[in-house]
């Protein structure tokens, strides 16, 4: 029996990339940056959003897209701070699919200036899926240990910013902060590192300033072609 070889050279993530590209174009037309926050369950992603809501009130109107396997608890927590939050329930899904994020865009308030996505708690899978974000934000808590960036390098390599959370707990832990900083620099020497405690409120203002700068840069970006043509 003979065989035929068909050369296709097609991206494995073909469908997902198409959705991500559509999302990116949609955001560019509005000049909103979108940040994909990724970290383990319990890393403090929601607390970080709550802290930013307080700090950025009246300065940057951001909307939130929440991804979880079950419940709308995180969206409710964020909404309690006056933030428009959309919950996507993924069921067994270990990451937010690009298509689900794209579908959620229509529900974002028209006067938003920025979108913060809290992906499903997981250090591995969400890093593999582009959802059309401006940048990934890696969220790591000090209780997870200083070696996690070296053990899960994919996320830290791809991140546009890295946030180390729960730093108020450092006095109680055997966490080598210098070793953690060194590990992060070895993987990603370009991304800014923010060391914060949402509970104590420390370090958050630097992260808030970074988001403000990103939103300002997005506003000043060249008008997308469709918009320039008045479409």
């Amino acid at each position, binding site marked *: 029996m003979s065989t035929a070889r068909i050369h296709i050279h097609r991206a494995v993530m073909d469908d997902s990339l198409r959705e991500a590209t559509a999302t990116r174009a949609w955001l560019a037309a509005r000049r909103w940056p979108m940040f994909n926050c990724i970290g383990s369950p319990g890393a403090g992603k929601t607390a970080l959003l709550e802290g930013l809501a307080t700090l950025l009130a009246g300065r940057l109107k951001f909307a939130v897209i929440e991804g979880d396997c079950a419940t709308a608890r995180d969206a409710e927590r964020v909404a309690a701070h006056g933030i428009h939050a959309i919950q996507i329930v993924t069921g067994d899904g*270990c990451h937010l699919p690009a298509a689900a994020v794209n579908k959620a865009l229509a529900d974002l308030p028209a006067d938003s200036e920025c979108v913060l996505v809290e992906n499903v708690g997981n250090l591995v899978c969400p890093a593999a899926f582009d959802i059309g974000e401006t940048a990934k934000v890696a969220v790591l808590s000090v209780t997870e240990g200083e070696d996690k960036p070296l053990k899960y390098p994919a996320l830290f390599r791809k991140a546009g910013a890295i946030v180390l959370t729960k730093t108020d707990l450092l006095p109680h832990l055997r966490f080598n902060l210098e070793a953690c900083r060194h590990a992060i620099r070895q993987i990603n020497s370009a991304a800014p590192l923010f060391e914060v405690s949402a509970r104590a409120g420390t370090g958050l203002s630097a992260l808030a300033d970074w988001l403000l700068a990103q939103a300002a840069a997005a506003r000043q970006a060249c008008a997308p072609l469709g918009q320039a043509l008045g479409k």
Partner: protein
Amino acid sequence: MHEVSICQSLVSVVLDELAQREVGAGRLKRVRVVAGQLHQLVPDALVFAYELLTRDTPAAGSQLELRVPPLEATCKRCGWQGAMEPPIFLCEKCGAGIEIKGGDELFVEELELAES
């Protein structure tokens, strides 16, 4: 861990290609996939997921063949080029940040079909 979710995308690409060409069940013998080292896919886990996800589809019984190009980089400062071993992404000569030149590919290269 992420092999199953990535394999779902992979299988949908394969099934779409088969449908476009009106290839009937049992004719697909082999699928060649290129997944660079950066993706950290465990070959056995990917093959396991592929067998599971193609069951009862026109791709059932086909074999997955994985090629893993090594991670290659260029130094942004001194121009050094060479292979790189994750998780350290710094130039081995001058210690500066690097730019990835290879090892981040993820695509279906080829389908091998039995002639009908």
